[in-house]
């Protein structure tokens, strides 16, 4: 039995692993709230809508019998991602889902006792609330205990991404408890004070937090149900009004200029064939742009995570997936600096590389970005790929390619070791190269490789 390291704060219960299955122990002290969740119809309402992760009650013995009420087994999601890996629109959808659940819960006389962004996970492009023990019986007159957390985990980072710069979403990785409101208030442009919602929930809230901490006393003070509904409605208004609009649309974002129409069809057919031969359960599409090839892998039945370092790409991919309800999960990942382990003992939020390896990775038109754009030696690129996936489909873009020539235009060519032979030598120490295929109308080569370590 292993207790999940991220699950230690809440006395209501905790997650644990046994024989590869994830369970959640519900503690006795939480029993009245759990019963209300299950018996009032709230659980059914939320899980039917796909808002709350479904679970089944099991006979599995609890991990801590002295405190246990029961043990439940939640439905497993294929991949757990974190808020600092989501694009703007995904974080916004997670925020709106949290507010919708709070509103729905109130209809059943319950409330969310926390509003952490880590309570939400993505199943493809759909946000799902995963903390079954976040619900508490509503006590008439009580303020919303999760108000500040909602502002720090969702509103402040969203406002900074929308009104300062989209890259500021990465602040969530530096602050696992959310972006402090005082910091957000200082960093946001002055014009955000003209928005009544941001003025109230960020700027005045930050100020109130500081000034009222000692002089104020919340005990005994009441807040009507109508006011609580108004608070959530007001947060919905301000979150809903925030926008980040990358230029371009999904269909014209993909850089097709490196391939002729026939060449691209050829590449697509080759990728399809390679995927068919590998038949991977899980695929990570590294540097996957707007997910053109991720979609092929998904069509062929794999659970796909598409990673790219460009926030605009990831957002366009996410919006398109949401439109067509695709199961591909688009994430913001910089492979030269993948998400580290964060939180208590660096174990609460797992490093990206520990959330793999995938059965197969695809790295199409990526190697030259790492090797030439970031000076990463080819053996290091091969070693990273071997850590992220068992098998690999990798495209090699040689120096003669116009994209590489463009990268080298304004800098000295210090890349004597960047050629196909060195590429094959580097990858051969981790993979067996099963096939190399030259792509039509280009100098590019597509490799199919299988991992050397039997697993």
């Amino acid at each position, binding site marked *: 039995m292993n207790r999940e390291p991220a699950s230690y704060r809440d006395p209501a219960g905790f997650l644990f692993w046994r024989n590869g299955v994830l369970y959640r122990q519900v503690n006795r002290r939480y029993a009245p709230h759990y019963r209300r969740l299950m018996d009032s119809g709230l659980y059914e309402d939320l899980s039917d809508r796909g808002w709350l992760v479904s679970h089944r009650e099991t006979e599995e013995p609890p991990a801590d019998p002295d405190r246990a009420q029961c043990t439940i087994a939640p439905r497993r999601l294929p991949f757990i991602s974190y808020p600092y890996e989501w694009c703007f629109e995904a974080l916004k959808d997670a925020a709106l889902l949290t507010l919708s659940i709070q509103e729905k819960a109130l209809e059943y006389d319950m409330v969310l006792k926390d509003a952490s962004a880590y309570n939400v996970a993505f199943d493809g492009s759909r946000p799902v609330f995963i903390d079954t023990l976040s619900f508490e019986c509503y006590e008439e007159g009580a303020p919303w205990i999760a*108000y500040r957390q909602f502002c720090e985990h969702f509103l402040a980072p969203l406002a900074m991404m929308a009104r300062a710069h989209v890259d500021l979403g990465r602040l969530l990785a530096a602050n696992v408890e959310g972006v402090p409101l005082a910091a957000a208030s200082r960093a946001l442009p002055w014009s955000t004070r003209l928005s009544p919602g941001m003025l109230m929930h960020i700027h005045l809230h930050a100020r109130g937090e500081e000034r009222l901490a000692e002089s104020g006393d919340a005990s005994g003070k009441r807040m009507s149900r109508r006011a609580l509904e108004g608070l959530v409605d007001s947060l919905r208004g301000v979150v809903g009004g925030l926008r980040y609009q990358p230029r371009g649309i999904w269909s014209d974002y993909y850089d097709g200029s490196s391939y002729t129409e026939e060449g691209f069809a050829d590449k697509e057919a080759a990728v399809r064939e390679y995927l068919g031969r590998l038949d991977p359960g899980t695929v990570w599409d590294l540097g996957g742009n707007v997910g053109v090839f991720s979609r092929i892998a998904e069509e062929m039945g794999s659970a796909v995570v598409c990673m790219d370092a460009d926030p605009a790409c990831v957002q366009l991919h996410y919006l398109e997936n949401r439109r067509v309800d695709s199961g591909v999960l688009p994430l913001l990942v910089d492979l030269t600096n993948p998400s580290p382990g964060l939180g208590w003992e660096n174990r609460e939020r797992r490093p990206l590389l520990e959330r793999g390896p995938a059965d197969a990775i695809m790295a199409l038109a990526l190697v030259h970005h790492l090797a030439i754009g970031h000076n990463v030696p080819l053996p290091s690129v091969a070693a990273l790929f071997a850590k992220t996936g068992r098998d690999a489909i990798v495209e090699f873009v040689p120096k003669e390619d116009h994209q590489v020539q463009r990268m080298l235009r304004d800098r000295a060519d210090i890349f004597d070791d960047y050629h196909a032979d060195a590429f094959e030598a580097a990858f051969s120490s981790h993979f067996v190269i099963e096939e190399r295929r030259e792509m039509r109308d280009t100098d590019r080569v597509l490799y199919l490789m299988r991992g050397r370590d039997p697993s």
Partner: protein
Amino acid sequence: MKMRNAIVLSLVLLFAVPSVAHAYLDPGTGSQVFQILIAVFVGAGFTLKVYWRRIKAFFRPESESSDE
């Protein structure tokens, strides 16, 4: 309306509350008190919104009424 609420509220906060900050206190306290302070405004705003929707729904022909 929302704007006026916000301005009134900022005046209340800026002038009525002495400035003291002690980091060792539960950092949630200030936020909870703040929430109760703004409760009057957000509650009133929400009530008006709900009634406004009802008025609109009353004058709207049956077929166009939304499922809100």
